[in-house]
């Protein structure tokens, strides 16, 4: 019986997870194209990476993107959720819906809408710059602004998810604690720093962990926004894997990059898990 129950899951897992993972490692030691066999080249694909400019760009941009989204995204969601928490009834549902809506939209829709809103020539956001007397910024066409802009859009897109988690976390704090705090004549800031923040810490850690692992794997937005622009300056690791494998037809070299990302994500996850456990433990 047990075997029958686990069989579908184990079969799927073996086929689309275990098997491809093993194959990826093997592929990274060959010079195979995307489809077809190649010769064993040992560590050559890895030895190339330190000299590979595009790999540097991709690695740097990936970490830069993580820095731009994880902590800022978590804080934005926290602030918004506290604002929403003060509202009541219908107004609360409405405001929550407005903040949450972007999250359920497909990335292509998010891309089309923001590409239009921030369009250098016709975007409505550019009129704000004009109106403020500032120079327009070609956000998706200049290297300096590309990552921050995509980070901003990503926060806009995914904040809804984090907001819901924060709201749930905030509601789990018993109201008596706040009543006690107000009887103590505690000001809003000290209530926040002494009650809300510490009690919300587990949720904050959870949200930022989910964000961290998600954003290391960034591809969709970067790919879409750099279309018709300068993809080579905007590479991130998954994009570089895609470029090597599907555009340059170099399966082996692509797999080596994939392995590097694979290892990075696992190392970061383990570190993050240990850190949050430690800091969580200390706070208790």
């Amino acid at each position, binding site marked *: 019986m047990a075997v029958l129950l686990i069989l579908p899951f184990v079969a799927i897992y073996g086929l689309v997870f275990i098997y491809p993972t093993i194959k990826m490692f093997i592929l990274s030691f060959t010079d195979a*194209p*995307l*489809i*077809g066999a190649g010769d064993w080249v040992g560590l050559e694909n890895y030895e190339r990476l330190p000299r590979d400019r595009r790999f540097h760009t991709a690695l740097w941009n990936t970490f830069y993107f993580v820095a731009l989204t994880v902590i800022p995204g978590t804080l934005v969601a926290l602030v918004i959720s506290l604002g929403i928490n003060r509202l009541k009834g219908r107004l609360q549902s409405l405001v929550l819906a407005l903040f949450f809506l972007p999250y359920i939209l497909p990335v292509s829709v998010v891309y089309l809408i923001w590409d239009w809103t921030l*369009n*250098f*020539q*016709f975007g409505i956001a550019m009129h704000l710059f004009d109106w403020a007397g500032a120079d327009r910024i*070609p956000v998706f*066409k*200049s*290297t300096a602004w590309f990552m921050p802009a995509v980070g901003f859009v990503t926060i806009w897109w995914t904040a809804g998810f984090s907001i819901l988690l924060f709201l749930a976390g905030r509601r789990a704090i018993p109201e008596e604690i706040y009543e006690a705090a107000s009887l103590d004549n505690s000001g809003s800031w000290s209530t926040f720093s002494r009650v809300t923040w510490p009690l919300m810490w587990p949720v904050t850690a959870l949200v930022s962990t989910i964000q961290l692992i998600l954003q290391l794997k960034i591809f969709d937005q970067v790919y879409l926004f750099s*279309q*018709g*622009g*300068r*993809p*080579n*300056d905007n590479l991130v690791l998954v994009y570089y894997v895609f470029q090597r494998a*599907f*555009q340059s*037809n170099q399966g082996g070299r692509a797999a080596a990059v994939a392995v590097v990302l694979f290892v990075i994500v696992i190392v970061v996850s383990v570190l993050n898990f240990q850190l949050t456990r430690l800091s969580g433990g200390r706070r208790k």
Partner: protein
Amino acid sequence: MLNLKGLAAGICVATALVSSAAASETVVWWDFLSGGDGVRMKQMIQDFNKEHEGQITIDATTLEWGVPFYSKVQTSAAVGEAPDIMTYHASRIPLAVEQGILTEVTSADWQQMGLGKNDYADATWDAVTIDGKQYAVPLDTHPVVLYYNKDILGKAGLLTENGVPKGMDSRDGFTATLQALKAAGVKYPLGSVTADGNFMFRTIYSLMGQQDGVLMSGDEFLAGDNAEKLQNALAVLQDWTNEGLQSTYTDYPATVALFTSGEAAMMINGVWEVPTMTDAHAKGKLFEWGAVELPVIFDHPSTYADSHTFAIPANKGKEMSKARHDAVLEVMSWISRNSLFWATAGHIPAYGPVTNSAEYKAMEPNATYSSLTANMIFDPKSPKAGIAGPIFDVMSSYFVPTLNGEMEPAKAVEEIKYELNDL
């Protein structure tokens, strides 16, 4: 509007061959033609299907131009999922042949289509020939041209009595025209696709050609003073940016929109936008406009051009049936013979009998810019060249920062040279 029937005379033979096959064949077709010229091609496909009812049906799909199209073709051919026929840039044929994703067009095929070497210009035939074998059927040649808004230029007194822009013969002259437009209150005297390095390759390579510069000498990139010629080309364009004479960080659709909305007085773009202008003008939604050969910025006229061709993918592990192959040949033959209509999409048809016809010679605005055919230059014939190929990829990365004033031309050339020779 056009007498297509006259040209269709020779088709009967091929049609007879195809109709001998009993069942109707569906030919899966991919192209990347989606602007005004895409509308024209859809029309031709419709006409083809109508004329071949019960025999051949073209099932056409338009994919995103450039890297997305060629990546899809490459991976699809490798797994046997490529179409039966596709449009292909001649510049990319060497790379495709090296990758083994094209099927040869044999002399028997040419015979069956009723087409051959003598129907094409030498350069065009050579572009589809690798090691003495042909891999595609040429459809057209498509250069870039200078579009201009006659209303704006006229008002600023910048048109000659022939109705073309002033100052087309020198760098100083053309810059003066741009400055005069700026002084007349035009926001963008020149609309340029400055956000897309792939596109700017056409303009920059044209400007190199005006100095007799070449990309490849043997296996070496930008050898000798060719690097300097590239730098000169970049410097001119960057100067225009610095003086506020051209649109910066503008992507393809925005460039067209700036021109059609009258915010940009001139625009360098491919001839394939001709139908966009013709159609809008016919609807009364566009100003008076014209298109001419690029200005001579350096020593002599020169314009970059590429060719659209039809190719048959080599689908791995999937042999094409005789009947399907015949149908594909009929498609290529029919479209070539009827390519006078394709000329309304701005392109210069590759099929000689069409370009030699009186109807073609009278066609506007094609006739105005057709002089440039004498000055056309093409990509180096190398597996590294071509739309979305390795050379494009490297150069385009440095064009965008340079054209928008982020990087010095000298620095860009140095980087480009290093990366190209490192390919």
